[in-house]
C-alpha cells in the first residue's frame, strides 16, 4: 500500500513522493490527497453551521484550515467548538437531528455531498476524544483494530510498531503489547488513542480537548507529539486551555457565544481567525483581546 510505505519515508521529498502515489492510487468515491505544500487548504468552510433538531448550535463559520498546520479552536464553554470539530469528519451524523448548513469543502470536495460516504471520510480524518477511550482489548489489538477493519492485514506487526513509535509510546509498552489497555495510565491511554488513529494513516487528525483529562506531564508529552505529528498530518485541536493553543498551534480560531435580541437563543460564532501569534499578541477584535487576556472567560 502506498499509504503504508509513506510512513517509513521521512522528510519533505518522501512526503511529496508518497502524496503523489496516493493521488494516483485514488479509488472512486475516495477523497484525493493533493500534493503537499504549506498553504494548501485541507478544509474550506464557507458559512458553515450546525443545528440540532432545528436549534442552531454554531452558524456562519468561514475559515480555511491548512495542510501540516496545527489549527486550534478556542473559546468559552458552549461556543460550539466541539460541535464544529465533529462536523469535519461527520461524527455529527451519529447524533439524531443534527444538520449541517453552508459549505464544507475537504480538499476542494463537498464533505456533505450526496455521494460521500461518512465511513470513507472517517478513514481519512481521524479523531482523538476528550476522555481517553481505549477499546477493552490488548494494547496491540487497540492499534491493530483500524488496519484490520480497513483490510490492511499485511505487515500488521510493523504497522502497530510504527504507530506506537509515532505516538511516542513504543518504548513504554513494547514489552507488554498483550496486556489490557486499561492497565495504562491516562496519558498513555490517550497516546494509545493517537497511535490507534495514526495506524490507519489518516490525512488529518481532529483532537477534541485531548488533554483535559490529563496531568501536566502527560499534557506536555501530547503537546510535543502534536508538533512532531504535524510534519506528517494536518491537526485540528479544540482546547479550553489558551496556553495550550499558544504553545502548539500555528493558527487559532476564537469562537464566542452569541445571543439573539431576546436572549432566548444562543449559538457559537467565529470572532477571529488568524496566525496564533497575532491572536495572542495583537488581536484585531476587542472580544478576542478580552478573552485571551483573561478579562472574560
Amino acid at each position, binding site marked *: 500500500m502506498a499509504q503504508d510505505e509513506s510512513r517509513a519515508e521521512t522528510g519533505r521529498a518522501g512526503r511529496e513522493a508518497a502524496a503523489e502515489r496516493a493521488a494516483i492510487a485514488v479509488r472512486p468515491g475516495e477523497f484525493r490527497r493533493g500534493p503537499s505544500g504549506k498553504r494548501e487548504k485541507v478544509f474550506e468552510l464557507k458559512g458553515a453551521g450546525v443545528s440540532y433538531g432545528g436549534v442552531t448550535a454554531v452558524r456562519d463559520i468561514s475559515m480555511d484550515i491548512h495542510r501540516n498546520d496545527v489549527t486550534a479552536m478556542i473559546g468559552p464553554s458552549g461556543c460550539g467548538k466541539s460541535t464544529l470539530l465533529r462536523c469535519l469528519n461527520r461524527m455529527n451524523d451519529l447524533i439524531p437531528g443534527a444538520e449541517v448548513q453552508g459549505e464544507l469543502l475537504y480538499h476542494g470536495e463537498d464533505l456533505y455531498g450526496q455521494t460521500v460516504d461518512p465511513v470513507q471520510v472517517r478513514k481519512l480524518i481521524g479523531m482523538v476524544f476528550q476522555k481517553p477511550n481505549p477499546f477493552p482489548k490488548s494494547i496491540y489489538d487497540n492499534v491493530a483494530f483500524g488496519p484490520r477493519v480497513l483490510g490492511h492485514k499485511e505487515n500488521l506487526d510493523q504497522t502497530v510498531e510504527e504507530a506506537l513509535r509515532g505516538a511516542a509510546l513504543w518504548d513504554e509498552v513494547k514489552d507488554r503489547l498483550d496486556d489490557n489497555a486499561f492497565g495504562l495510565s491516562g496519558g498513555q491511554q490517550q497516546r494509545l488513542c493517537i497511535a*490507534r488513529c495514526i495506524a490507519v494513516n489518516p490525512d488529518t487528525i481532529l483532537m477534541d480537548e485531548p488533554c483535559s483529562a490529563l496531568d501536566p506531564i502527560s499534557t506536555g508529552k501530547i503537546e510535543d507529539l502534536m508538533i512532531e505529528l504535524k510534519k506528517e498530518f494536518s491537526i485540528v485541536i479544540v482546547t479550553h486551555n489558551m496556553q495550550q493553543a499558544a504553545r502548539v498551534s500555528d493558527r487559532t480560531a476564537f469562537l464566542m457565544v452569541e445571543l439573539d435580541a431576546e436572549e432566548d437563543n444562543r449559538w457559537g460564532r467565529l470572532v477571529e481567525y488568524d496566525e496564533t501569534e497575532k491572536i495572542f499578541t495583537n488581536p484585531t477584535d476587542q472580544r478576542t483581546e478580552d478573552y485571551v487576556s483573561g478579562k472574560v472567560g
Partner: protein
Amino acid sequence: MAESGAAAPRNRLAVAGARATTQAMLSNQPRGDVIRNMIFAGLLLLAILIALAGLVALLVQAFVKGAPAFSLDLFTNGPSRIRPESAGFRPAILGSLELIAGVILFVVPIGVGAALYLEEYADKTRWWNRLIEVNIQNLAAVPSIIYGILGLGFIVRGPLDLGFVLAAGSLTLALLVLPMVIIAAREAIRAVPDSIRQGSLALGATKWQTIRRQVLPASVPGILTGIILAVSRALGEAAPLLLVGAAAFVTFDPQPFSGDRYSALPVQIYNYATQPQEEFRALAAAGIIVMLIVLLAMNSVAIWLRNRYEQRW
C-alpha cells in the same frame, strides 16, 4: 488598626462558635436516628432471610427425602411403572438436555439479534419501536401455560405442524424464554459505553464492524447471564411441555424429530410424585437432586464462559 483590634475578638468568637457547632453535629447523632437505622437494617436482613429460608427448606426437603433413593443408576436407568428400585431418569435427562440445546440454538441468535436491532438500529422516537419494547416486557410476564397452548396450536399442529416431537417442545420453550434473553441482552448492549462505539467509528469502521468487533464482544458477559437465567427457567418448566407432547414413561432415548414421544426432567418428576407408592415419591425427590445437578453443570459452563469474557471499563 483600631478596626482590626476590634475585629479580632469577634473573629475568635465566630471561630469558636463554628467549631462548637461542628463538634455538636459530628458527635451527637440523635438517638432516634440510630434506632431508625437499626430497625431499617434489621428489616432488610429479615427480607433476605425469608428469601433464603424458602430455598433452604426446599433443598433440605428434597435432600432428606431423596437421598436414600439417590444413586448414580438414576442417570442410566429408564423409568418404570412397577419397580421403583430400578427406575431412573435417563430418557428424561437426555430429553431435557436436547430440549435445552434446541432452546439455545434458537434463542441466542434471535434474542441477541432482536436486542441489537432495538438498541443499535431502532429509532426510539418512533411509536412502533416503543410499542415493540412494551410488548417484549409484557411477553416476559405471560404465564407459561399460554405458551404451551400457543405451541400446541402453531407448532405441533397449525402452520408448522411438527407433531408431538421434541423439536416442538424446544421451540415452545424457546418462545417462552425469548423475551427474557432479549431484555438481558439489551441491558448488556446498553452498558457498553458510547465512547467505544465512537472510537471505532472514528477510525473508519462501519456500523456493522463496530457492532461485530466492539459492542458484541464487550456485551458477551451480560448476554451470557441472560442465557443462564433463560436456560434455568426452560429446564424447570413442565406445564407447556405437557401440552406439546412430553410424556412420563418413555423408555427409549429421545430423537429430536421422530414421531415418538419424549420426556423431560420436570415432567418425569411430576409423574413420579403423583404415584401412590411411597418409593416413587422418594424417587421424585431424588429426581430434583438430579435436576439440580444438571442445572448446576450447565450454569457453571456459562459462568466459566462469562468470566473468561469479563471486561471492565
